[in-house]
Structures are given as structure tokens and as C-alpha cells.
């Protein structure tokens, strides 16, 4: 247990795999934990979590709207709102989004600081409807 003391954030890993070399569940730490949390928030719909209907966003709904600039801007606002509301560890620098009309998808990149880190973190996500 001592190895976790210098870690600021520690979360379960949703893959529920085994920590290499140990008979314990895999955990994710610090930056990785936050990035996963952000990803998970983006993929959560409102009313999905019991009794906490406000957690989540309309992102999935928007993916079924016409793929254009307006929808993209709505998506951007949704992403900013959900991250600012529910992930206090993230200090958002910017969200860039552009339509990949050939793939019927949006490419989203988020740039943010985690806590008091000096170095920004960036993640890229492709948002695409799957049905």
C-alpha cells in the first residue's frame, strides 16, 4: 500500500484487470485517472446514473443531429459544461471540435491543466454514432 502515498489521485480501472505481478486489481493514477474520468463523463447520458439525473450530457443526442457547424458548436458547449460542472480537477484551456463529414463523426480535442500541474494535458476523442 505504501506506493500509493505519493499519488494524488487513485481510481479503479474499468478494465478490471490484474496489476502485473500482483494478485490485486489494477488501478489508474493521477493524470490517467483524470483523463479516464473526463472520458467517462463525456460518455454519460443524463438520467443514466440513479437519482443523479444532472450528471451527464446531451452529447449522444447531438450525434444524431445533422452533422454541421451548428451541431459541432452545441457539442463543444456541452463538453465544456459537463467537464466544468463535474470534473473539478480539470482546468479547461480549450475545446476544439471539427466535423469529419466523410466519417460522419466529430474529432474533439481537449486541452486542460490537471490541478496545479504546469504542463497542460491534451486528449483527442472521436465522437461517432454507433447505431
Amino acid at each position, binding site marked *: 500500500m505504501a506506493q500509493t502515498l505519493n499519488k494524488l489521485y*487513485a481510481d479503479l480501472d474499468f478494465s478490471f484487470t490484474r496489476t502485473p505481478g500482483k494478485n490485486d486489481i489494477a*488501478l489508474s493514477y493521477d493524470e490517467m485517472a483524470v483523463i479516464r474520468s473526463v472520458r467517462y463523463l463525456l460518455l454519460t447520458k443524463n438520467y443514466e446514473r*440513479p437519482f443523479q439525473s444532472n450528471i451527464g450530457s446531451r452529447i449522444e443526442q447531438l450525434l444524431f443531429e445533422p452533422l454541421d457547424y451548428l451541431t459541432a458548436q452545441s457539442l463543444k458547449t456541452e463538453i465544456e459544461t459537463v467537464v466544468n460542472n463535474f470534473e473539478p480537477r480539470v482546468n479547461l484551456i480549450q475545446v476544439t471540435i471539427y466535423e469529419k463529414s466523410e466519417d460522419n463523426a466529430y474529432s474533439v480535442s481537449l486541452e486542460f491543466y490537471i490541478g496545479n500541474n504546469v504542463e497542460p494535458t491534451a486528449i483527442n476523442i472521436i465522437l461517432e454514432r454507433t447505431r
Partner: protein
Amino acid sequence: MATTANSGLQITNLDFGSIKLSLKNFLQNQDTLKDYNFDGSALSVLVDLLAYNTQYNAYYLNMVANEMFLDSAVQRNSVVSHAKMLNYIPKSAAAPKAVIKLVVNGVSGATLSIPKNTPFISEAIDNINYTFLTSDSTTIAVSSNTATFNDLQIIQGLYSAIVYTVNTTANPSLIFQIPEAAVDTSTILVSVQESSTNLISQTFTQASDYTTLTPSSKVYFLQEGTNGKYEIYFGDGILGSLLINNNVVNITYVTTNGTASFGANSFTLLSPIAGYSNTVITSIDSATLGGDKESIASIKYTAPKAYAAQGRAVTKEDYIYLIQNNSTNLPIESVSVWGGEENVPPVYGQLFCAIKPSGGFTLTQTQKERLISEVIRPISVLTVTPTIVDPDYTFVKIDSTVYFDARKTTYNSGQINQIVKSAISNFASSTLNTFNSTFKMPQLITSIQSSDLSIITNESTIRLQKKIYPSLNSATTYFLDFGTKLKRNYYNAGVSSYPDFSVRDINSSNAIRTGVLFEEVPTSIGGVASINVVNQGFGYTKIPTVKITGDGIGATAYAVLAGGRVNSIVITDPGLNYTEAIVTITPASGDSSGALAFANATLEGSLGTLRTYYYSNNIKIILNSDAGSVDYAKGMVTLTNFAPIAINDPLGQFTISVVPNSTIVSSTFNKIVALDQFDPEAITVTVTASQ
């Protein structure tokens, strides 16, 4: 992992938020997983899952605990099961009953029988025609080829029969279900045949007194099953006869639509009686006195009372319960019971019950006799004689003027009128129409006020009415007890009557006068007529002061002394408008020994006079200047030797209406303050829009 594992765990929370908070507090005690506070983390999802599961279990256990008590149970099967512990069978739907006269023409033979369950069809009520059945078979003598069935009772429902064969392997508990939930259990007939080949059959009756059951008693037991359907089961060979394999159980019953067919009064025979189809059917009583299946709320209310009464009528509440839940299945809306010693005048050794049936005003003589002989007498105390008296209805007629702000509503004045009318009738059905009910004007005003947001204010007045059916052509004196003080000489609008009637004029060689009405003689003003000294007192050295207090004004009097005693009291001014007056005699100042003198006042005009009048060529003519009297203080109107020839009303109903002194009217004993739902003029509403 955790150093102080249990320090943050609260286990008494029941809602999701508190459970989740408690789990988070618990997780604070460890440092392996730190992200429980962030909604996006995987750990947060796990905490949600745990909290949801905990909350689900807590809720479930709470509901289970609720169902364990009669007071908090909400599921019908739980309530019924608790009632069963109290030896209470929920009441089934009761088939409404109608009475008809059936004339069959062209009959050959000496007698004609109409079998039980002969079907009739009613007129459409809310677009549904209901089937009615004869409740018994009847045989009558035929006269001049015509058979007349007078007072034939028919009940609303459909006849059904079900046959079960006893098989102790497949159905070891020997419980037989009646598949229809709307069965009227009073119509259930059970017979048991030896087997499908041995046709010997015996009738089984419903068990009631368990102390008399023997191993050979041919009885069945009735209960409501877990799915709301009634179940029949049989004895175990000790309490009641035991059924054996291959016995055939025949159950017949009637299923009813309950109150839905109320008011049906036009019937057609569905199939000929013994081949005769030339029939004439006249309605005598329309369909009434039925009921729907007992509600959960009613079971919760009644079952403990049934247990408390223990099948014995001793206390007032026992009688009320037993009459309301009578075994004759007569639906009763309200019961009032009082001992003879409370009666005015007292009648010792008697018990009075006033009963208001559902959907009617009074019980018939047969219904009263059945209630006494079958319900009350078998379980009442031997020395107490029960008497059923008719309810004495005092009807309230409500006149309301409503002002509303047309800008605050989309309704027009006609719609506001309807809204106010329904608010008034809701008010009446929730507060009036039962024994010991009280009409309170402030409540009425509040109900009208809250019926729509646009209503600014309302002014309401009431009149009280008594409805009688005077016997024609015979002089009868009617005493109408309104049970409350009456307003006297009320701008010539005090006591009045409608409709008009015709009567013989004894002053004019018995000529028939039509269009005659009653009115109050407008000069009955009451002052103090005399003061009677009850106790002269003693030791008066100076003339004491005499003070008259009451609801009138201006009466004054002085005392006359003789030998230190009050000899008499002389009235100097009788005053005006007294309905009660109290005389107080106070020793004058400086008189320290005078004491105990006491006197009573007698009022003049405490009785008003009624007279009859009619119009002849637009001239009002007084027919009988002393046709009755009004006792304002007792609220009693007397019509002396009233002998109308005809009443101008199709039913012969005659209404006397008065204005009560107070806007709060309460009822005791057999009195009911009610709003007549059959009278279209019971509620009149005037709507004025103010801009």
C-alpha cells in the same frame, strides 16, 4: 486498506443521497482509492451502485414492514389478511334491488310460477343496459286469465354457476375460487353432490357461529383470496363436515355491477314465462340499495370495530357497526343510535336507531323488521327493546351570489356558475347528509371561494326546509321540528310554503280555493309579557334594581317590595324582539342584607302565527288567519288541522321553508341536515362578473 474501517459508516440512512454520503465518508478512511469524490470516476460509479442497492433494500424492507400492520398496509391482500385475523370478511359487491309489478295476460291454468333468476333487461344507463334477475321463485293464483305479480323483487346481476370435483391430491387445501371478483356473496348457494354418478346432493350454508359447529355440520367458509376473488373452503371433519375425493361442489352466484345500475326503472322481460309473453311491467321502486365491493380504506376502518364488537351489541358503537355491516347486505350510509333515557321524552328500556340507507331517504317497513329480527335482536341485550325510527331530514337550500374577476379566468359566467354549484354539492356530500353533521356557513363560503381563483367574494344565505307528504282530505296537525332557533318576522320572508295547494273554505260554504299558500303573520314582535317572581328572597331594605337581558332591546321593569321581600315586578317597557330574556335582581347600593330573589320572564309573541292566503283577481285574500304556529325558540312549526284537497306537485310533496337564526345548523339523534340532491332548486347560484 482501511485503518479505522467503520468510523464513517452510518447505517440508519434510507435515502440515496445520505447512503452515498455515508459510503463516501467510509471511503475517506482509506487511501488506496482516492477518487470517490469525483463524479466521473469509476469508483463513483461503484459507490452509486452500492448506494442504489442499499436504498432499494431499505425501501423494500420498509414496505414489507408496512404490510405487516393493518394501519400501514397498502396492498389489498395484506389488508384482507389482517382483517381475517380479526375474523372479518370484507363485504362483497351488493346487487341493487328494484321492485316491479308484472302482469301476465292470456294465462290458462290456475296458477303461474315465475322461476328464480328469470332475466329482465333495464333501460340504458350511461349507454349500458343491465340485466336484472328475480331473486326468488314465486307462484301466484291466476284470475280471469291474468296473473299479477305484485311487489316482485329483482336484483341486478348475471347468474353464474361453477362446478368443482374434489381432488385432495391436486387441491389438498380444498379451497374453491369464484372466478368473478364482482360476486354478491349473499347470493352464493353451495351444494355438494356425492359424486358425478351418485346424484344425492346436500346444501351447505355459510358458517357463522363457530361454537355450534360439529364434525357433521354442512357448512362452508368464505374468505377473500390474495387476488381479490372470493374463495370457498370446507370443514376439516372437526369444525364442519369434511369433503372426500370425487365429491362434486356446485356453486351458484350472481355477479353484479354494483352502484352503476342505480336508478334503473324500466324493465323488459327477456324470455317468455312458461310460454306467455304478453306481459306488462310497471316499476314500483327503481334500482337502489346496492353497493360496490368494500374498499381497502373501509376494511381498515371496519375490521377493528368488528373485532371490538365481538358479534355482541352492548355499546352504542356496537350497534352502529352491526347495523352498518348487517348480514342482510342492506347498504347503510349513516346510523345514529341513542338510548331511551336520552330521548325527549325519556323512554326507559328502549334503544333508538335512526338509519339512512344508501341511495334513499328511509327504510321500508319490511327492511326495518328484517334488521330488527335478523340483525339487532339476536345479539342485543335481552332487556333492551330496539326501535328503528326514520331519519328526520332538514334540507338546506343554499342561495349564493358570486362575484368573479373576468380578467383572471377563461371561464364565462355560465361555467363559473357550474363550478360553484359543483363546489357546493361537494361541500354538502363531504360535510352534510349524515347523522350528527353540522352545516357551517364559514365552511361553505371557503369552499365556494376556493373553487376557482377568479372568485373575488360570495354572499350566501340558507333556508331550512321540511318536506312532508300531507294526507289529503283529512285534517291532520303536522309538527315540523327544525331543531334550531328560527329568525322571526324576517322581512315578510320568514316561514313560507310551496307548492300551492287547494283547500275548502269553511267560512264560505266549503267552496274550494286553489293556489293557497302559507305565510308568517308579519306582526309577531316579541317583548316581555310578564315577569313571574319565583323566589321572593329576604332582607331587602331598599328597592332592588331589576335588569332584563337577552337578544332583544329596551325591556325595563321595577320591583315592588313587601316586608323585605320582592312581592312583584312591574314592567314599564316590554321592549322588542326578544326570543329569550333573563331577569337579574340586584340589591340596591347600601342594601347589604337583601338576597336570593329570583324571577322568570314570559315573552309575548315567542310564538308566531301562520296563516293561509290566496289571490283572487290579484287581490290577496286571507283564508285562515290562524292556520298554525311557529315557536321561534324551539324551532318548531305547527300546521294545525291541515286538510288539503290536492297538492300542486306530482309526488304530493309539500315543503315548508324557514330562515334559521344562526348560520350554523347542527343535528342530533335522528336528525339529518342534508342537501336534497333530487331538488334542482336546492342550490341557486347567481354569478356577477366584475371588471
